C-alpha cells in the first residue's frame, strides 16, 4: 500500500471512530464555549476591554480544548493496544503520524470555526478584514497545535501523569505559534494599517512546516523504542 493510501485509510478509520463517539466531541465544544464565557467574567463587564482581548481569549479557549481532543485521540489508540496492533501490521510510522495529526488538525479547526463567530458576538468584537481571512489563521494555527500536540500526546498517554504532562510539554513549545496566531487574528479583527498580518502568517507557516516535518521524521522513534 502506498504512503498516501495508508494515510487515507487511517484518516477514514479515525473519522469513523470520532463519529461513533461524537458525544465526546460535543462535550469538548461545550467546554470551549464555556471557557469563552469564563474569560469575559474574568475580564469584567467593560465591553471595550473584552473586544480588545477577544483574539487572545479565542486562542486560549481553542488551545485548552485542543489539549482535550489530542489526549482523547491517542487514548483510543492505547485502549486495546490498537497502536501496538498497527505496528504489528507493519503500518508506516510516518503515515500513522500524518494521519493522526491531520485528523487532530481537522477537529481543532472545526472547533475554531465554531468558536470564531461566538467570540466575535460575545465580546462585541469586529472583524474588519473579514471572516475568510480569520478562518485562514485558524487553519494555520490549528496545524501548529496538531503536529507537536500529536507527538506529545502519544508520549503522554503512555505514562502515569498523562493529564498534567501533555500541557506541560506542549504549551511552552507552542508559544511562538500562539503568539503569531493571536497577533494575526487581532490584526484581522481590529484592522491592519501597517500591513503586518502577512509577516505573522509567514512566521506561522514556517512554524507549521518545521514541526510537521520534524515530528513526522521522529515519530518512528517515539513509537518503536
Amino acid at each position, binding site marked *: 500500500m502506498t504512503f498516501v493510501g495508508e494515510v487515507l485509510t487511517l484518516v477514514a478509520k479515525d473519522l469513523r471512530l470520532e463519529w461513533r463517539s461524537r458525544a465526546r466531541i460535543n462535550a469538548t465544544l461545550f467546554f470551549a464555549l464555556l471557557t469563552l464565557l469564563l474569560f469575559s467574567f474574568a475580564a469584567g463587564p467593560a465591553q471595550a476591554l473584552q473586544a480588545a482581548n477577544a483574539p487572545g481569549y479565542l486562542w486560549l479557549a481553542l488551545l485548552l480544548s485542543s489539549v482535550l481532543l489530542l489526549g482523547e485521540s491517542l487514548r483510543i489508540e492505547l485502549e486495546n493496544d490498537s497502536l501496538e496492533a498497527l505496528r504489528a501490521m507493519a503500518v508506516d510510522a510516518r503515515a500513522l503520524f500524518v494521519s493522526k495529526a491531520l485528523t487532530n488538525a481537522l477537529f481543532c479547526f472545526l472547533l475554531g470555526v465554531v468558536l470564531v463567530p461566538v467570540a466575535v458576538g460575545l465580546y462585541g468584537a469586529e472583524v474588519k478584514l473579514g471572516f475568510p481571512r480569520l478562518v485562514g489563521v485558524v487553519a494555520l494555527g490549528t496545524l501548529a497545535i496538531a503536529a*507537536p500536540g500529536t*507527538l*506529545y500526546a502519544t*508520549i503522554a498517554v*503512555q*505514562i*502515569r*501523569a498523562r493529564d*498534567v*504532562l501533555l500541557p*506541560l*510539554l506542549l504549551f*511552552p*513549545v507552542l*508559544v*511562538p505559534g500562539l*503568539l*503569531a496566531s493571536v*497577533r494575526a487574528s487581532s490584526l484581522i479583527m481590529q484592522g491592519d494599517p501597517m500591513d503586518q498580518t502577512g*509577516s*505573522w502568517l509567514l*512566521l506561522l507557516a*514556517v*512554524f507549521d512546516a*518545521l*514541526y510537521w516535518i*520534524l*515530528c513526522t521524521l*521522529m515519530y518512528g*522513534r*517515539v513509537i518503536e*523504542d
Partner: protein
Amino acid sequence: MKRALNIGLPIVALVLVVWGAYQGLAVAPAERMMGEVYRIMYVHVPTAMMSLLAPTVVCIASLAYLMKSTRAADALAEAGAEVSVLFSTLCLVTGSIFGRPTWGVWWTWDPRLTSVAILWIAFIGYLALRRFVDDPDKRATWSAVTAIIISVDVPIVYFSVKWWNSLHQMQSNPSTVDPRMAGPLRINITAWFLVFLALLWTRYRIGRAEQDREQSTPTGEPKAVLRMSS
C-alpha cells in the same frame, strides 16, 4: 586524571567565583548611569550565557542519542537539562533584580528574557517527563525527541517575541563595556563557565552510575542455545 577533574574542577571554579565576586564588587568602578546597582551584571551576564550553553549541550547530546543510541549521550543530556534549569533560574532571578532599578519593572516581554523563560519551563517539563518513564530506553528516546523539539523552538520564540515587542539594552559583553569593567567580567564569565562544567561533569557521572545500576545484561554466563531436535 579523572580524580583531578572530579575534585579539582569544583575547587578551581569556587575559588574563581569568589575572586570574580571580589573583582566585581570591589575592584570594578561604579557605572556612570546605574551606579552600584549594575554590579549584578557580573553574575547576570555569565549565568545568561550558561543558560544558553546548557540547552546547546542537551540538544547535541540528544541528537547523538537519536543517531547512535549510546547511553552516555542520554546521561549527558540529562545532566545538561538539570544544569540548564539551574542557570535559567539564576539568570531570570538576577535579571529581575537588575531590571527593577534600571528599567523600573521586574519583568518585561523582551525576546531574550522570554526565550530564557520558555527554556526554563520547557526543561522543567523535560525533567518531569524523565521522572515518569520507567523504561530506560523509552525514557532516553522520548526525552531526546522532546529536547530537539524544544531546541528548534527557542530561536522561533526569540524572533517572534522580537517582532512582538522589544525593549532591552544591547547585550553586555567585554567588548562593549568600559575596559576597567571588562577584566572583572571576563573573570566572572570564566568562573561561571567552570561552575557549569563542574556541575555538568558531576551530574553526568551520577547519571552514568545510575545507568550501571540498571545493568544492561543479566549476570552469569550465556545459556546454551536450544534447538529443535530432528
